[in-house]
Structures are given as structure tokens and as C-alpha cells.
């Protein structure tokens, strides 16, 4: 009976941890199989321990090229989407203008539409214009679908901002430009940073829209997709594991810095 009571009280915790395990399991498999030495072309069955792939992560032709292309596109898409999105967010929160409803739905719709629809319709536009598919069409598409997410992230932050801070700056004889650079921007910075990070991540990991609009250009997700048909090299797992470790370390370091700052302030 005691056990049943204990189970009842902790049911939520147990179920939650099971879900967490379901979420983490594939990452564990990816990591373990980065040390595999597979027979044949596919890396789906465990054979024996090997660190060969870790010593030669670029050993597969095209892999590291696709990775660097993906990083470049993600960087430019992040810059483009963050700039355009931040401008829209400020206009939405700070100003009154006509056709606000139409503007809001134009920003909301790309997030409410399945990627495959956006991808296919953008491809029809490019085909109609006779555009050469490649780096630029991918970049255009990525800025387009990241834009709305940046707007949402920045808008949330700017909306929660206390307008009295800017009024105070103006009372202290700061001009509009000075107020913006010294007061508004620093307060909005976390929102802008969050939007930028989201844009980077979305662009870097995008497959469906890239698949339609890349032509013969190969980004990292496109490389993985192609290898799923032709044979998966262990190096894919190595890169997946390395990205995971680096990102988790970055998060932990930034959290540690944040904690220390908070403690110093207190």
C-alpha cells in the first residue's frame, strides 16, 4: 500500500522522466554510433568500437563543404532576418499605422503554414522568374521563414519594456538617437539576441524549404538526406555529437556566467 501511495504521488514525475528519456534516447544512439565501425554502407547496426571517424571527421567527400555552406547561410539568414524582423517589431509596438491587421496576418501566416507549401510555392515563383537555384535562392527562402519568428521574439521583449525609462532619458535631455542607442537597444537586446539565435538554428537545421529551392547545392541537412539514400558515413554522427556537446557546453557556460553576475549584484 505504501508503494502504491508513493507511486500515486510521483506518477507525474515518473511519466515526465519517461518522456524525457524518449526525447534524449536518439541523441544517445547518435553519440554511441559515432564510435561504430560499420560493415557495409549504412551505420544502423552496432559492430565494434572504433575512433576512426573522430580522427577524420572530414573524411567523407562533400561533408565538411556542406557544413561550412550551412553555417554561412545560417549566418547571413540570421543577420538578414534579425535586421528586418527587429524593424518590424519596433514599428508594431511603438507606432500607430494603417492596415495593422493585414501586417499582423502577413507575419503570422508563414508560421501557420506547413513548410512544404511555402517551399513549393516559392519554387514556382523562382521557376517562373527563371532564377538560378542555389546559394541565393536558399538564402532568400531562409530569411523569409525566419523573419516572423524574429518579429515574435523581439516584439515580446519590446512590449514588456517600461516606457517610463525612455521618457526618463528624454527628460534628462537625451535626443531620440541617444535614447534609442543608450536605453532602448540595451533593454531590447535579449529579445533581439533570442530572435537571432532562433533564426540561426532554424536556418541551419532547415531541410524541407532547402530541399525544394537548393537546386544542386548541398547544405548539411541535404547531405544527411542524400546519405540516407546512398549510405550513412559514421562522420555524420561525429558531427551531430560534436554540435550537441559544443552547444550544451555553451549553454552551461552562459548560465554559469549569468549566475555569477547575479550573485555579484546581490
Amino acid at each position: 500500500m505504501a508503494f502504491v501511495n508513493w507511486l500515486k504521488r510521483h506518477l507525474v514525475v515518473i511519466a515526465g522522466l519517461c518522456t524525457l528519456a524518449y526525447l534524449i534516447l536518439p541523441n544517445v544512439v547518435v553519440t554511441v554510433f559515432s564510435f561504430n565501425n560499420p560493415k557495409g554502407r549504412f551505420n544502423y547496426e552496432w559492430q565494434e568500437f572504433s575512433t576512426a571517424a573522430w580522427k577524420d571527421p572530414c573524411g567523407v567527400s562533400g561533408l565538411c563543404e556542406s557544413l561550412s555552406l550551412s553555417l554561412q547561410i545560417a549566418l547571413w539568414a540570421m543577420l538578414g532576418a534579425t535586421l528586418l524582423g527587429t524593424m518590424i517589431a519596433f514599428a508594431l509596438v511603438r507606432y500607430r499605422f494603417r492596415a495593422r491587421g493585414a501586417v499582423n496576418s502577413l507575419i503570422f501566416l508563414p508560421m501557420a503554414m506547413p513548410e512544404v507549401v511555402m517551399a513549393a510555392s516559392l519554387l514556382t515563383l523562382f521557376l517562373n522568374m527563371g532564377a538560378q537555384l542555389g546559394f541565393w535562392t536558399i538564402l532568400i527562402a531562409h530569411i523569409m521563414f525566419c523573419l516572423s519568428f524574429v518579429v515574435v521574439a523581439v516584439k515580446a521583449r519590446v512590449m514588456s519594456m517600461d516606457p517610463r525609462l525612455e521618457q526618463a532619458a528624454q527628460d534628462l535631455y537625451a535626443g531620440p538617437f541617444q535614447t534609442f542607442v543608450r536605453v532602448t537597444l540595451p533593454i531590447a537586446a535579449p529579445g533581439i539576441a533570442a530572435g537571432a539565435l532562433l533564426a540561426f538554428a532554424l536556418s541551419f537545421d532547415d531541410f524541407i524549404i532547402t530541399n525544394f529551392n537548393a537546386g544542386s547545392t548541398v547544405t548539411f541537412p541535404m547531405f544527411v538526406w542524400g546519405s540516407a539514400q546512398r549510405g550513412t558515413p559514421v562522420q555524420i554522427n561525429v558531427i551531430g555529437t560534436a554540435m550537441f556537446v559544443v552547444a550544451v557546453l555553451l549553454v552551461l557556460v552562459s548560465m554559469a556566467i549569468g549566475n555569477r553576475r547575479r550573485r555579484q549584484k546581490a
Partner: protein
Amino acid sequence: MTTVTEAPPLAPAPERKPPRRRGRWTPYLLLLPGLLWLVVFFALPVIYQASTSVQTGSLEEGYEVTWHFATYWDALSAYWPQFIRSVLYAASATVLCLLLGYPLAYLIAFRAGRWRNLIMILVIAPFFTSFLIRTLAWKTILADGGPVVGALDALHVLDVTNLLGWTAGDRVLATPLAVVCGLTYNFLPFMILPLYTSLERIDPRLHEAANDLYARPSTTFRRVTFPLSMPGVVSGTLLTFIPATGDYINADLLGSTDTRMVGNVIQTQFLRILDYPTAAALSFLLMAAILFMVTFYIRKSGTEDLV
């Protein structure tokens, strides 16, 4: 649970309308580049696609708008099973995401204590590895004769799923179950995060009040917690259902030709068969179907002010 939790800090600034400022043209200048981008590369393509769907012709001779609406009828009669399948798979994945995601969101919001940040990181961390690589990992996890399939077989779960047509023989890979499992996995964080956000906003004093009024934990959940988390449930289900309906990656990597979804059809028509009118018609139908279902759902759940 008799301790009274400290009151949350007061709302910061009073609500206000955006003031009219100097520079009447400033908002338009701020909006112009971004909106232009969305109009040219998002709205215009949708119109182009609508026009493509009623064109006839061939790749060699070019296409012409002939208002050939029969394309829609042909596409629907040829691919209705894929349409139905997409909605069924996406709906099953959404329900599974809600059932799996709710306890975890609840755990993070109310029971995690000092582990909260760590669990949060673990929920977001999978995002850091390309989702295609992680989806391929399911091929290993669900491999024929592997431990997972073996366990399901020993527990006679496979007998039940075979009977329902979710699996076939002693395989899980290349069956609907594998596709739904992959969809659920891929979109689970999109369910957990909005759920967590709305659960975290609930004032803990409400739980205490329910408790003081002799509500059992299950009643508290049913009458207080769950209704207050509805905004999270609605946005979580939308964020899961919409992308899952259009997805073709899970069906391609984990499924077989019998589990093809409408996304797979659009992709092959567009990129391999190069039948643009049919592909455009299918994509347009998918968009219309989703907008219709989402509008209906938002009306029904009474949270129109959410979006």
C-alpha cells in the same frame, strides 16, 4: 500545503496605446523592407502557385493558364488516401505529444525544484543535433530484431498493433507506427514549451486555494490546472499538428510506400516527376485544408484572441 506563497510582483507599467510620435513616415519606413520581403517571397508565390495549378502544358512547350480546374479533381481522386493518412498520422502524433508532453511540462513547472534548468536544457538540447540525424537514429532504435521490437513482441504489444494495422508482422520499421513515433518525437518540444509557458504562469496560490477547499489533487487538476493551461494546449497542438501534416521526412525515412503522406506526393511531383500543375494543386489543397481546420479549431476552443 498551508504556507501562503508570496504574492507575485505588481504588473510593471500600465497598459497604453502606442503614442503618436514625431515622424509620420517612420513606421512605414521600418515596416517596408521586411514586409516587402514577405510579400514578394511569401504572398506572391502563393498566388503564383494558385495560377500554376490551373495551367496546362508540358515542360518542353511551356505552361499556359487555361483554368483547367480538373487538375484539382484528378489530384484529389488520385491522392485522397495520402491526404487522409496525413491528417490521421498528424492527429495521432499530436494526441501522443499532448499525452507525453503534459506530464513533462507539469514536472518542469511545479515539481522540478532546483532541477528545473537542467531538465529545460535536456528538452531543448536535442535541437542542437540536426533533426535528420536524430530521425535516422530511430532506424537503429526500431531495427528489426532489436531490443525495442523484441520487448514489444514479448509483451504482446505487437499482436495488438498488428490487429489494428499499425504494424505488420514482427516489424515496426516501415509501418505507420514508426512514422507516427517519428512525428511525435520530432514535434514533442513544440508541444512541451508552450505547455510549460502557460503552466508556469499559474499562480500557485490557486492550487493552495483548491486544496483548502478540499479538492482532491485530481479535482484540482481537472478544475483548476488544466483549464488554465488551455492557451498552452491550443498553441502546442497547432505547433505540432500543422508541421506534422505537411511533413514528408518521417514518412520517407521511417516508413514505406504504404505510409506515404501528402508531403511525399508534393515533393515527388515537384522535384522528380516535374508535374507542376498537379503538385501546385495538391499543395494549394493542403494549405486550404489546414487553414480551414485551424480556423475551426481556434473557434471551437474559444481562444481567438490567442493569435
